[in-house]
């Protein structure tokens, strides 16, 4: 019944879940974990401030990805940033324009936007047409975003989620239009472009820290603590694997390669 070829992955998952549970319990008992600042996420407030000052909108996209496949958590990470941004923008009366690439993301993104306005106590300022479905065709999506930024004179372009070849097009064009640019993705091929062309970059795993970073909610920070414990376990496993392999034992490696 149990698929033994996946036993190590299963154990890993159980360990992760247990560490998550442990950290949550700690947080509920009152332990406050430290959380370092992440410049790319701090910059979101700078964008809102600039937009409010200049009376111009902000553009944001939760990426060129959907919710149906294994890229879903990346899109959700983008939506978490949107959730915070929507509330801040509603509070300071800044227009926030969202572009999505896959149709199933549209209703979710609209709900998130509306919730932001409600949380800021200004449900009347929510405008459905500010959350837009563009296209799931790569460059139709990218060129329409740049068109939007140009026409609406946006002061910032925030891109968090999954991105592919359009990353450099989006980042460099919005920089040339004078936007503050924040780019965040986990795609190893595209990160170099975000690093080169964006003012701020969220590298890989950093995009998952948004929710905790913005809310400073102890329980959400506890999730990051569990993530860090996972990384320590990873380093330990790596160390043990190297030592055992050097000692001539292939057992651990075999398990890892399952």
């Amino acid at each position, binding site marked *: 019944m149990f698929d033994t070829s996946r036993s190590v992955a299963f154990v890993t998952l159980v360990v992760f879940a247990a560490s998550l549970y442990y950290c949550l319990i700690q947080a509920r008992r009152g332990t406050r974990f*430290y959380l370092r600042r992440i410049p790319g996420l701090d910059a979101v407030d700078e964008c809102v401030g600039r937009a409010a000052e200049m009376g111009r909108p902000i553009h944001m996209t939760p990426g060129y990805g959907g919710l149906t496949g294994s890229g879903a958590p990346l899109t959700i990470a983008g939506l978490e940033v949107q959730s915070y941004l929507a509330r801040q923008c509603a509070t300071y009366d800044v227009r926030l324009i969202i572009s999505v690439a896959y149709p199933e993301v549209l209703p979710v993104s609209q709900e998130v936007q509306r919730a932001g306005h409600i949380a800021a106590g200004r449900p009347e300022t929510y405008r459905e047409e500010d959350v837009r479905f563009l296209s799931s065709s790569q460059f139709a999506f990218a060129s329409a975003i740049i068109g939007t930024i140009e026409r609406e004179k946006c002061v910032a372009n925030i891109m968090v989620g999954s991105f592919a070849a359009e990353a450099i097009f989006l980042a460099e064009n919005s920089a040339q239009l004078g936007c503050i640019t924040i780019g965040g993705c986990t795609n190893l091929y595209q990160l170099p472009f975000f690093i080169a062309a964006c003012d701020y970059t969220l590298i890989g795993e950093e995009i998952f820290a948004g929710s905790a970073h913005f809310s400073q909610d102890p329980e959400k920070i506890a999730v990051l603590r569990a993530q860090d414990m996972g990384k320590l376990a990873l380093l330990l496993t790596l160390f043990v694997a190297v030592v055992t392999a050097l000692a001539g034992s292939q057992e651990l490696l075999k398990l890892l390669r399952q």
Partner: protein
Amino acid sequence: MSADPAVWIAAIFTLVTFSFLWKSNYVYRLAEHVLLAIATGHAVVLGYENVRNMGWTPLVTKGQYSLIIPLILGLLLYTRYVKSVSWWSRIPTAVIIGCGTAMALRGSLQAELLQQIAATAFPMNSIESWLVLLGVAFTVVYFIYTYKAAGTTGGISRIGRIMMMIGFGAAFGSATGRLALVVGRFQFLMRDWLGIIK
């Protein structure tokens, strides 16, 4: 020079799109809307064909009645336009997100975590493999958020960042192979349209 009207149309759209590099202009913005219209139209057509081939046809011709569930769930998405029942649209969304996140969870454990550890730990028979090991370890330390980085850890994290920049530089340098795309478009213009090269 080509006498084929199709080539001319393609060439004109190519030139219009390139003109954007000089300055965004009226005709380019028209092309941008044309592309959006056709691409999204194409997506709607494919969506229709998929729903017909994967959902409707097997339901009515092969009697796969379970397909009624996704069809109803799909229609529930549209309840968001009806205020009193708009929250029903969260049900299909929940199914989609539940599936997507579970797929991510399943997919990343083995290939992207465990097997990568094994690949890094063995074989340790060259300077390169030790460098890779160090690079991996330092990069991982960079990503730690909730432990205060002081002294050595802070130093390691900084080195991790520098190492990442070396890696990104290398990736950026190899990615400029994308200039091939410019070559491709120029070949189209110069060969297929103008006929000045073979």
